[in-house]
């Protein structure tokens, strides 16, 4: 079997331009709840952009420079926005039962993104370089050690924590979110539950 041909065939069948960049959508997509996903992505983009700017100047810049502090503030508030919209998105999708009709894996990717997002943000809090970092770093060591993660992660090693925060975890997060998005576009938005009395599947 030719792997390249197989991948191309599968991609061209499942990831058509109509699905990737749709210019129409089902009429049932009509609620504020649907905007939480796109707001989550927008805030994530700002988190990444402000993070790249901060990383390019190093971990001291945002502690000693006024401009650095401003970008740290943008980073801080975009993270707050990211978690707000992601939580609203998660809750909304739960109430819509959005794992239905072949979308279980989309849900799994979304939940994993949430978990990786939490750990990424935590390493960010430890990279702030202030008392909040200092205090939570020594407190968190007990949790990480107790969980048995100490062999991999020395939470008191700022070099490791900072590296995880700016490269390793964001890369995993972006891959998960990207995959989640592809799944959403490939399968489309989950249809509403059939109404009571209506035969499952006989959706009018």
């Amino acid at each position: 079997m030719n792997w390249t041909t197989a991948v191309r065939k599968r991609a061209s069948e499942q990831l058509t331009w109509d699905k990737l960049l749709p210019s129409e959508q089902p009429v049932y997509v009509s609620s504020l709840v649907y905007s939480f996903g796109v707001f989550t992505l927008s805030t994530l983009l700002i988190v990444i952009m402000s993070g790249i700017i901060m990383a390019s100047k190093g971990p001291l810049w945002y502690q000693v420079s006024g401009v650095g502090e401003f970008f740290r503030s943008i980073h801080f508030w975009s993270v707050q926005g990211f978690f707000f919209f992601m939580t609203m998105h998660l809750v909304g999708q739960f109430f819509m039962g959005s794992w239905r009709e072949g979308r279980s894996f989309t849900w799994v990717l979304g939940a994993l993104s949430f978990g990786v997002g939490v750990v990424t943000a935590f390493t960010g809090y430890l990279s702030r370089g202030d008392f909040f970092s200092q205090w939570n770093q020594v407190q968190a060591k007990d949790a990480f050690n107790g969980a048995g993660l100490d062999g991999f992660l020395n939470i008191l090693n700022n070099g490791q924590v900072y590296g995880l925060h700016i490269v390793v975890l964001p890369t995993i997060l972006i891959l998960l979110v990207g995959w989640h998005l592809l799944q959403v576009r490939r399968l489309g938005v989950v249809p509403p539950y059939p109404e009571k009395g209506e035969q499952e599947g006989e959706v009018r």
Partner: protein
Amino acid sequence: MKTKVNRAAGRLRRDPMSFPQKEFDLIKEGTISLVIVTILIIAVAALWGAPYRPAVTNQSIAQQNPVLMEQSALNDLDGTSTMASYGPPYNNGWNGSAQSIQSLGGFAPQTWWGTPYAVNTAKDDVITPLSMLAKAGDNSALSTALATYQSASPAQQQKWDNNLNNALAKATVQNGLPVVPAGNYGPVALMMQDELMMAQSGLLSGALTRETNNGVYRWNVQNNLLFLQGTALHQIAGQINMKGEQWGINHDEQAYPGPWWLTPYTFLYQIPPYNTIAAGDEAAAYSVGILFVLLILLPWIPGLNRLPRVLPLYKLIWRDWYKRDRSNKKVDKTTLTKKGLA
């Protein structure tokens, strides 16, 4: 009008493309969303900034609370500090005993990795920094004190340590230095005073992180952080409500929002058995881990995966669709494409 239904394997699979469609501009919607949140975030950042409280240094503790600084160093020397007997991954306890290893019914993952980040508080935090100070300052009195202490029997060392510990509890401060009544402290009184003065000078932090990264690129600040992690940091954290039992990490400085998304995790620290057992951290970590696995596997958990169907909120979210469906209204044809209309 019926939508395309795939009942393969008895499962409902409806194609969203076969429902009535309306116009949508993905790129425009994404751009508008990005512009809105960018403006909002920049405005909030410019208006309110972000929280920042400078880290606490050994120097500031030594200057503001010299008794506490000497007590911290002395407890590291005599093996009564938390870190002295912590256990893995830092050490195997003080003289091989009194470890505080977290274990739930014998399940102790803390011990799986051995002691990769070795810490001997007496040597790392007191003896070696003081030896460096004695050499750098050609301080023969300190060199003699260190030699006397190290050559004394453990029982003698403990006696001196205990005597000074008891005296420090009643010490007064004059000219930035603790004053204790005359007593049998051996060389320990001088050692602690010099350790305090080294901290007041600002040199102690560098001495504590001396061995990491071969002493040049000091990205690992483990020993510096651990030195203050006991009473010193707890006192300051307690004053600003950041201790674990005060919902610790869940909130930030004053009015700023903290990492509120950790609420389920932080909540566990407020209730028994998590806030009463010695392995509370381990129990909390694994409880949250199990909850997270449940969240991931939700689509396959019987009962939970049907919960949204039982709750009425989906009717609110799709109210327009159900209203349209029930009244069998003809949707404005100008907003629909022909595709999907039967």
